[in-house]
């Protein structure tokens, strides 16, 4: 019993799906009502965010909202003082991924280096 697989030839149960493309990975799923998030990440190694102007972006069709480090409980995930390139500053949710990315690109704000 304990040695039913070790040292034996067997066909892994998921390999057929992997070689035919039928295996579903996380991003292969779509659910009704699913929305998409993108992050605004730091483009510089260190900065202090002094202002985020999201009014234009929040008015865009398909944009659902943003969260920042100032929202309760998010200080551990998002930051107003990014400490590396890619440090997440803000998350934005939208109806689809393209809208989310367009919205991120349109965000305006200011920071001190």
């Amino acid at each position, binding site marked *: 019993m304990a040695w039913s697989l070790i040292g034996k030839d067997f066909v892994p149960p998921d390999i057929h799906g992997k070689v035919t*493309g039928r295996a579903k*990975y996380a*991003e292969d799923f779509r659910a009704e009502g699913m929305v998409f998030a993108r992050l605004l*990440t730091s*483009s510089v190694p260190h900065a202090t965010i002094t202002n985020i102007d999201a009014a234009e972006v929040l008015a865009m069709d398909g944009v659902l909202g943003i969260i920042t480090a100032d929202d309760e409980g998010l200080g551990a995930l998002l930051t107003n003082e990014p400490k590396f390139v890619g440090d997440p500053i803000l998350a934005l949710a939208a109806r689809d991924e393209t809208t989310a990315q367009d919205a991120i690109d349109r965000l*305006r704000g200011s920071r001190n280096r």
Partner: protein
Amino acid sequence: MAENQTTQMAVAAPFPEPRIDAGGILATVGRSKASRRKFIKGVIVSGAAVSSAGYVFGGLSGCTPEQAAPGGVERLLSLNVNGETRRVDVLPNETLAMTLRYKLGLTGTKLGCDRAECGACTVLIDGIPSYSCSTLTHAVRGRAITTIEGLEGPNGELHPVQQAMIDELGPQCGFCTPGQIMTAVALLRANPNPTRDEARFAMSGNLCRCGAYDHYLNSIMRAAQDA
């Protein structure tokens, strides 16, 4: 570093480009033989920086909404995918990987990096392995596109490369496997009896994070033998 995955539900962190401010880019161009591409990119970025007061967060790709209208208008195309003609509405800036995965439901084609580095999105366009993440759908009208879903026979018989992948336990996590298989299929069509080194070279555009390269090569050598 954050990974630029086209992940849903989970948050996808875009890979930010180092931000270049107006003074920076001019200084850069002035003192070095910056490439034309870099220069143009820099001008676009600095243009965006100048247009708003103070520092801005900076566009990610130089493709800010002012330069390129987001979205644009979808147009109805006929695509030849796996031998079938598929009618689909496509945005002007839509990549073939996006169309295949999210409009035609062919999720066997994977998006690993979405920037032509990893090869997970490889499909055949007129028999040539191509990165579908970096091919615009509008550019492949009238071309024959083959994805992993198009390899099996009419009764679900596996392609010899797929069978060899099972026999040799090619995949580990399996995420890069569809791309690996598409490249291997194209290789064996062009060169039915490659040496191991030739196969290794042909497969060099397909990365595998599990490091199953030797398993994939074993599979390809077996497929060449069996075919």
